[in-house]
């Protein structure tokens, strides 16, 4: 029984740690404010919850799990609220999302753009036009990388411009 509890709590702790790590990774890698916040907020709540439950299993029949449960409840309420408030404040103060590219490739396939209409300003017709069957495979590939690649592309362009200037 003890062993089972230990294994369960170890699994929970490791998963929680993984969540938090992925969240941190997302904050580093995502291109702009809203996607970064998405990465941070979801994994933060989930990861903290998993870690706390894992710690509760280690606590045994004492007051410790109760205290941890209180922290759990507190975090479970406040963390998403804070994320909501942050996103709302960003939206109201006019932070623009960068999740908008001409082909609309970051949207899920086979779904109308309306589902993600707050993410993009691209008209529907344009998107569907670009998604011919031959394009589909390419689109899928770029969809995965579009988010991460965008700043890199800019940087490349910039350096290319600089080089051109130097030459001239």
């Amino acid at each position, binding site marked *: 029984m003890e062993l089972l509890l230990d294994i369960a709590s170890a699994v929970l702790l490791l998963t929680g740690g993984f969540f938090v790590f992925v969240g941190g990774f997302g904050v580093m890698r995502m291109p702009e404010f809203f996607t970064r916040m998405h990465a941070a907020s979801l994994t933060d709540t989930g990861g903290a919850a998993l870690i706390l439950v894992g710690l509760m299993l280690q606590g045994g029949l004492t007051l410790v799990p109760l205290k941890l449960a209180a922290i759990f409840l507190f975090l479970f309420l*406040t963390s998403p609220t804070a994320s*909501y408030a942050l996103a*709302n404040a960003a939206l109201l103060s006019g932070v623009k999302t960068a999740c908008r590219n001409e082909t609309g490739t970051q949207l899920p396939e086979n779904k109308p753009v309306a589902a993600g209409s707050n993410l993009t300003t691209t008209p529907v017709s344009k998107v569907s036009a670009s998604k011919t069957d031959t394009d589909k495979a390419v689109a899928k590939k770029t969809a995965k990388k579009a988010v991460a690649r965008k700043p890199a592309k800019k940087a490349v362009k910039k350096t290319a411009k600089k080089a051109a200037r130097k030459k001239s």
Partner: protein
Amino acid sequence: MMTIVFSLFLLTMLVIVAVAILRTDNLFTAVMLSGIFSLIMAANFFILDAADVALTEAVIGAGISTVLFLGALALTAEHDRSPPVGSWVPLLTPSALGGVIIFATFQAPRLGDPNAIVHKHVAPWYLEKTPELIDVPNVVTAVLASFRGYDTLGEVFVVFIACIGVMSLLGRVRPLRDSIEEGEFDKRTDNLRHHLLPRVVGKMLVPFIVLFGLYVQFHGDFGPGGGFQAGALIAAGVILYSLVEGGPRGRELVPEWFSSMLVALGAFTYTSVGVASMAMGGRFLDYSALSHDPVHGQHLGILIIEAGVGMTVAGVMITIFHAFSRRGIR
């Protein structure tokens, strides 16, 4: 070993955050970073086994002072004016001072060294005599409230005087409520009433924060905590309510006459305990005279003066916050 790794990590973070505060010219960012700085500092204090200080730092440094800074920021511009460049003197002074401090640390005793001077002076006496003379588990409370009662009285009066100073700077402005109607009132004041989620969750948390504050207040003899922390926590609850519902509604919950009266009342309570102990045949702030049993007298005295400290601290925080939020409207 783990402690050292954690300390190293936290201290490194501290330096990074401090440099970031210096480098940013956006004051809003600087305020947020200073909150993070305080939070890291609180974790550091906790690692050094100073739970009471950690609690204070977390509540006041990371919580209330951030809000007060934001309140001050609402009255000024968001961006720092670019500082004058070209003089080497400002760089020279702190580096010389920093060099001296770093040089001094070579002479300092190692962390946790039992032979360090601070552990040889009065600390052993406190540790030895507390169970006998005062009989509370938390020695920090015993030292703060009883052995060093004079110092704490001085601190309470420092807070009291600081409040008077801030209030005389910020002044009193006529409240908004009288002149306008309800709907206009909600529109004119900066509150979060139209944001459902923060409003609901924030209001839900207020009673729990105040309850925790009361726990910290009355459990201070047994665990970390006491009047300073509890006062700040209760004030944090009231401030959260004011943030969510808007300053004017916060001023209806805890009116300004009440919070400023609380400031004076706390200092008065503390002092009157000292006078009472004199009247009952002891010396000033000698709680043993308060009851037939000296230890009981100590318990009673500590309870009352901690309540006084809590009242003053909570009153000061709420008063200053109200003063800021009242200025922010216009």
